[in-house]
């Protein structure tokens, strides 16, 4: 049963490709699904840090925005195609993550969180004031995404065109996370988090592991930002808003940490609420923040934990 869980999860995620069509094929269905896929990928970047290192990174909006800015700048000013801008998004985010990773290498817990947050504030201030990055206006007029391989490919800017790409990006991310969980780095990260003494005894260098996981997580959020730039045809300093930060964290904890599909389901729940059951921008903020706080205070293990409690209750009674 447990051995089949991962392939089953991947198959479920793969079948999600047909969700917009099944949901009637309306533009709003494509828009919602594309947004969910993009924001879920963004969350998986932060998930790597929260679930496997046990630290709270408040700086992943930097990588998210870096991906978006890299794509927009190069597509608008240099006319680069989708592959090239994606490569640039990865490169920029890796460089930024390496710098931030080195700076925060010796910080833990709240100092790590606060420093990553501070770095995000600095990055936003730079994006807001630097004319090269468009300043407060951002960069407008991002051309339609062009991704071609051996003559076959996609190009477009509508959500119906972008959905297959968003879905493919999501699947790639899931496969990467799945590989990571079973890799030496992934298991070392968990060991460093849960039993640092054992890690030291086995010759695992905690700092190297933390640094590598941090750097590996950045391109994931950056690629989400890359696609987001094409979806909106615009990037601006609003990519640093705390909305994305709170969304990432909520998406990760809502279902339960260290679950392959956790952040995806979490993001889907949040975006469905905000798209179809919205109670106004401020009301949605209250919902999102309250869900985040309530989950951690009432069922720290997420909805899965709640489910386990309920199931244990019924089996005991039976």
């Amino acid at each position, binding site marked *: 049963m447990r051995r089949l869980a991962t392939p089953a999860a991947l198959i479920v995620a793969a079948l999600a490709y047909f969700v917009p069509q099944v949901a009637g094929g309306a533009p709003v269905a494509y828009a919602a699904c594309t947004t969910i896929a993009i924001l879920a990928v963004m969350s998986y970047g932060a998930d790597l840090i929260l679930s496997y290192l046990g630290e709270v990174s408040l700086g992943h909006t930097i990588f998210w925005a870096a991906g978006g800015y890299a794509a927009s700048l190069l597509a608008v000013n240099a006319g680069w195609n989708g592959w090239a801008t994606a490569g640039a998004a990865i490169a920029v985010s890796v460089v930024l993550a390496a710098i931030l990773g080195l700076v925060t290498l010796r910080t833990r817990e709240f100092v790590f969180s606060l*420093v990553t947050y501070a770095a995000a504030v600095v990055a936003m201030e730079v994006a807001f004031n630097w004319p090269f990055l468009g300043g407060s206006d951002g960069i407008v007029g991002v051309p339609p995404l062009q991704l071609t391989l051996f003559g076959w490919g996609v190009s477009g800017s509508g959500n119906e065109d972008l959905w297959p790409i968003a879905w493919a990006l999501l699947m790639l991310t899931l496969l990467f996370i799945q590989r990571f969980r079973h890799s030496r780095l992934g298991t070392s990260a968990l060991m460093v988090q849960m039993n640092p003494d054992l890690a030291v005894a086995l010759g695992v260098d905690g700092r190297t592991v933390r640094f590598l996981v941090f750097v590996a997580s950045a391109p994931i959020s950056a690629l989400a930002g890359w696609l987001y730039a094409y979806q909106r045809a615009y990037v601006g300093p609003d990519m640093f808003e705390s909305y994305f930060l709170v969304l990432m964290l909520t998406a990760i904890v809502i279902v339960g940490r260290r679950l392959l599909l956790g952040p995806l389901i979490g993001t889907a729940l949040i975006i469905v609420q905000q798209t179809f059951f919205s109670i106004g921008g401020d009301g949605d903020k209250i919902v999102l*923040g309250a869900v985040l706080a309530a989950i951690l205070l009432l069922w720290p293990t997420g909805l899965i934990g709640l489910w386990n409690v309920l199931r244990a209750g019924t089996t005991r009674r039976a």
Partner: protein
Amino acid sequence: MNLAQQIINGLVLGSGYALIAIGWTVLLGAARLVNFAHGQLYMLAAFIAWAAMHKLGVGYFVAVPLAVLALGLIGVVLQAMMLRPVMQQNLTSLMIVTLGFGYVIQGGASRIFGGDPESFISPIQTASIRFGEIWFTWQDVLTLVGTLLLFGVLWLVLNRTRLGALVRSVAEDPKLAQLFGINAALVYIGVFVFECAAVALGAGLVAPRSPILTSMGFDEVILTFVVVVLGGIGSVGGSLLAGFGLGMFTALFGALVSPAYTTAAAFLLLLAVLVMRPRGLAAR
């Protein structure tokens, strides 16, 4: 540039930073809890004082104590909700929980008070004092004196009274403190209430400098984080020094280099310090 004026500005800015930071410093030192709702609590206090002045018609000097009282009550409620993870010292969860609280407060405040900037004005903000080239307001004097008084009283309470000894013992080792019959939960609640009340006082004195917005939130107080870390986690005297140091730095950097990049410069300074001393300047 008038150097004397910039030094005055630095002192005024610095006392504001120290005042807004002090609750956070004490909370971090005693409970190891980072309250990411700190900025939203600051915003809420400013709006409660503003609403008291404009809806209830009370004066500024009544409105600010009212806001301090209201935030103290909110502090009791918030800490009561967080008590279980606080007792377990589940710090990762707590950080995220306070982030959620902050988001709720921000959404709730914009629903109640609207999204427009409001002017929260102190009557002594317009009363200024001039010595030749140098210029400051009575509000600046009040902030500076209020900050020094609060720090003095706090230092005395923490170091010279039984109450202070309780807080310090819980900060040192909560389990051991409990073995000696100290109610750690009560101490945590007290410290959190102090944080909320202190940030409300800070908002009452500092927020009148500029229009207030429900979206100002964390970015408005993020600079005080520099004060908390540079001063040394939990160090009252260190916070005061770091506050004034940061005030001088921002005033001079803003005047000499560029006002737009002041926050960025302050953080680069902080990052540089953290690379060399990950636990802050005051850490031994």
